[in-house]
């Protein structure tokens, strides 16, 4: 598989869309996505604070971030490049782990404000169906699914043994 393994796969099979409505104006939500000091306040699940975040918030600029888990070790950083920025409306950027061979996904975040309420849409376009399966678990081969279950067990056993 090469970096563009998914190039021949239909986008509809590689995407995931998450939406959420906020009782706030689009410009506040846009700010929350475009400044490190804001992003650090909300990005990531509870217990995994963002402990490193750098943003060169302009088209062609890079961003990177990393979270620290309950063990206190900073996790593999992830990041990418800003592809499109429409103030208070839209941010398009690439996102992937800083690991050898890691594929990048393309994230399109749109902010649609109406009567003081903003609909936030996060569209993730994975590089390939395989990458989507790894992250989302949808439509993946059963073999890989159980492989991942087992992987979790193996890693847990290794950590316990270490």
């Amino acid at each position, binding site marked *: *598989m*090469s*970096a563009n*393994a998914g190039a021949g796969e239909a986008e509809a099979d590689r995407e*995931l869309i*998450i939406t*959420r409505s*906020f*009782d*706030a*104006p689009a410009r*506040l*939500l846009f*700010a*929350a996505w475009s400044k490190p000091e*804001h992003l650090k*306040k*909300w*990005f*990531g*699940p*509870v217990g995994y604070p963002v402990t490193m975040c750098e943003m060169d918030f302009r088209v062609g600029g890079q961003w990177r971030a990393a979270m620290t888990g309950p063990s206190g070790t900073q*996790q*593999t950083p992830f990041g990418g490049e800003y592809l499109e920025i429409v103030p208070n409306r839209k941010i398009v950027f690439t996102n992937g*782990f800083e*690991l*050898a*061979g*890691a*594929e990048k996904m393309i994230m399109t975040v749109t902010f649609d404000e109406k009567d003081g309420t903003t609909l*936030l849409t*996060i569209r*993730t376009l994975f590089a390939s169906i*395989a990458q989507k399966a*790894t*992250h*989302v*678990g949808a439509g993946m*081969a059963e*073999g*890989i699914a*159980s*492989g*991942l279950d*087992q*992987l*979790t*067990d*193996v*890693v847990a*056993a*290794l950590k316990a*043994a*270490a």
Partner: protein
Amino acid sequence: MQQLDLVFSALADPTRRAILARLAKGEATVNELVGPSDLSQPTISKHLKVLERAGLVSRGREAQFRPVRLNAAPLEGAAEWLGDYRRFWEESLDRLDVYVKELKRKEGRHVSKRRRR
């Protein structure tokens, strides 16, 4: 193929997962791996090559026995890719909802201050 692809395709096969599970308990020779399975030595060796290429196992130097051992590092890299992507975002957006309300409240205070002036 890239490292992570090699790791995931290596893990897609139940025989190879069984080999890894066995090696998680300690190193073993090829014969010891063949022992409990219904598979031939060449078949096991073929699976070991796939695992070796993915960096998941390494072989000892002693030509005769060459014990196989598990390498944890690529597994940990792969494990970071696990987890529920959707849940990650849903939890983040829950926090964003709280944070953006706070921003709004702060902004409201600034506005009323300005009005008072």
